[in-house]
């Protein structure tokens, strides 16, 4: 029984990482109807930026919560810049183009980042330095949780709440929602759509960057192709929850994390990657709009 709760805890912890990445996917899709394939690579770059900044600033010399925050901040800013650049260079010129072209370009950007990552950083796995290692284990009735996981989970929740606040309680958020509802009408209303889209990309990428650093802290082995699978899985999570919907992305991601954990623990550990896709196919077959999504009627 305790084992069961332990798996739940593990699953939620895994899911919170997916949630941070899924939020970026869902926001960009909501605004541009574009699946940003390169998002997984932004996550990877977050981990690498985090690693290099800790090495450069020698943050591993005093591991503490503040080192973690500094690392997170740098990675989030760095990824926001990366997201902005990708959007400007690769997606903006294709604003009016057919969806397939943009999709192919997104795939191209993703591949480019992966392989140039292998070129620049080397394809062998790197070790993420320890910047935060709390001692001891929290024990709640036999279920153990490493304080590291607890803190990471906490930070993820905080980031998601901040995002929720931005989207629903600020002008920028309102502008983002307006653009996602109807692009042209929003620009007619005086909203600088290009800028809003850029902000969306930057926000999403910052979250992915944070996820990257946190993955680096929990699973200290990072390599340039680490973003492919989590990226795809986070996308599945976003679709499962209803793409375009923030709460949906979080719920979807947590569900995916839990199901993955239980599949591995009780059934077939080697089908872990295939589970996400199987889930995607089932969702798209039976409820294409996802759990929380609303149907978009197609006008002829």
């Amino acid at each position, binding site marked *: 029984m305790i084992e069961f709760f332990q798996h739940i805890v593990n699953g939620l912890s895994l899911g919170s990482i997916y949630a941070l990445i899924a939020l970026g996917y869902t926001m960009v899709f909501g605004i541009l*109807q*574009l*699946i940003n394939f390169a998002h997984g690579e932004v996550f990877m770059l977050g981990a690498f930026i985090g690693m290099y900044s800790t090495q450069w600033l020698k943050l591993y010399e005093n591991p503490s919560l503040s080192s973690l925050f500094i690392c997170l901040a740098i990675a989030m800013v760095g990824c926001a810049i990366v997201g902005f650049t990708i959007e400007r260079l*690769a997606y903006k*010129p*294709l604003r009016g*183009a057919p*969806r*397939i*072209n943009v*999709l*192919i*370009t997104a*795939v*191209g*950007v*993703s*591949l*480019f980042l*992966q*392989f*140039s990552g*292998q*070129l620049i950083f080397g394809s062998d796995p790197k070790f993420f330095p320890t910047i935060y290692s709390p001692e001891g284990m929290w024990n709640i009735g036999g279920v153990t949780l490493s304080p590291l996981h607890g803190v990471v989970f906490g930070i993820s929740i905080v980031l998601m709440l901040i995002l929720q606040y931005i989207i629903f309680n600020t002008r920028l958020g309102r502008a983002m929602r307006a653009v996602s509802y109807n692009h042209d009408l929003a620009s007619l209303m005086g909203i600088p759509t290009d800028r809003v889209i850029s902000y969306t990309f930057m926000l999403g990428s910052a979250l992915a960057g944070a996820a990257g650093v946190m993955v680096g802290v929990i699973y200290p082995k990072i390599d340039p192709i680490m973003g*492919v699978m989590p990226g*795809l899985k986070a*996308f*599945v999570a976003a*679709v499962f929850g209803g793409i375009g919907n923030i709460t949906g992305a979080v719920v979807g991601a947590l569900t995916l994390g839990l199901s993955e954990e239980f599949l591995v623990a009780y059934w*077939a550990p*080697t*089908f872990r*990657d*295939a589970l*996400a*896709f*199987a889930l*995607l*196919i089932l969702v*798209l*077959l039976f409820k*294409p709009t996802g759990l929380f999504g609303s149907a978009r009627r197609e006008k*002829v």
Partner: protein
Amino acid sequence: MSVLKSMSSWLAVGALVWILDFAVMGQMNPYFFSVIMYAGINVILAVSLNLVNGFTGQFSMGHAGFMAVGAYVSAYITTSLQASNPELLMGFQGQVIFVCTLFFAGLMAAAVGYIVGLPSLRLSGDYLAIVTLGFGEIIRVTLLNIEAVGGARGIPGVPPLSSFGWVYSFMLFTIFIVWRILHSAHGRAFLSVREDEIAAQSMGVNTTATKVKAFVLASFLAGVGGGLFAHYLQFINPTTFDLNRSFEIIIMVVMGGMGSITGSVFAAAFLTVLREALRDLQTVTHVDLRMVIYSLFLIILMLTRPSGVFGNMELPDLFKRKKRQEV
């Protein structure tokens, strides 16, 4: 045009292929020979994918999965035969069995294509892409877990039954089939689905059936391509058919022009040659620049000339220019 339509000209080229096979190919440098063989196999894959992506407008990203099914089925059959009665694989009889195995592998790949296509093709655009990608991955992970086909190790020691003759005959076969289908009522249905699905539906075209047809045919051809690949490389394992393989084929299709068979042929050949030509660059710089160059190429292509090198044009169109009369 009538030259291309007639069977005899295709058969003549096929005969030429076999003459080359017996006369020249045995003496050729094995490295160049391998480039030629891979080019032929890639053409089969690119043309079959173009049928779905380019001509029917359904962006499928899981083509490597069907290739894998074809490769594994044919390799499994031939290796089992090799183990139990090796004399069956000798000589002319062996060649006949090889072709039968390839067709069977293609049929299995087509069956998988049907299973994959029927649910997926109800979706559109981005979702279809991800779902097909997902299916490709599911196929790969499933093969990874089946011990009977070697699991992670794959199948080593596949008998080398692919010869220049077979690869290029099947390549001609693929091009011929796709060409003829496109210039038939079925082909027009494919094109109409690509152009405007709702209009096609209102004109009475069963869009789902059409899409599935294209998908199944493409999977069949990919399965055949996979079988030829397995019997050339003599070794297959699940990582050979991963996401990157699907992307490589997509790059070929996109570069050649999604809607041009000539384009796919040209792009497949070009990229295969380029890949090997860049290998020497790799030994100097000690890094694998090939995929970086490919992906950069893809991005630049989509930004500057999204229709690909050939766009919608076929090779005969280039010669037809003078005769065209438009009002």
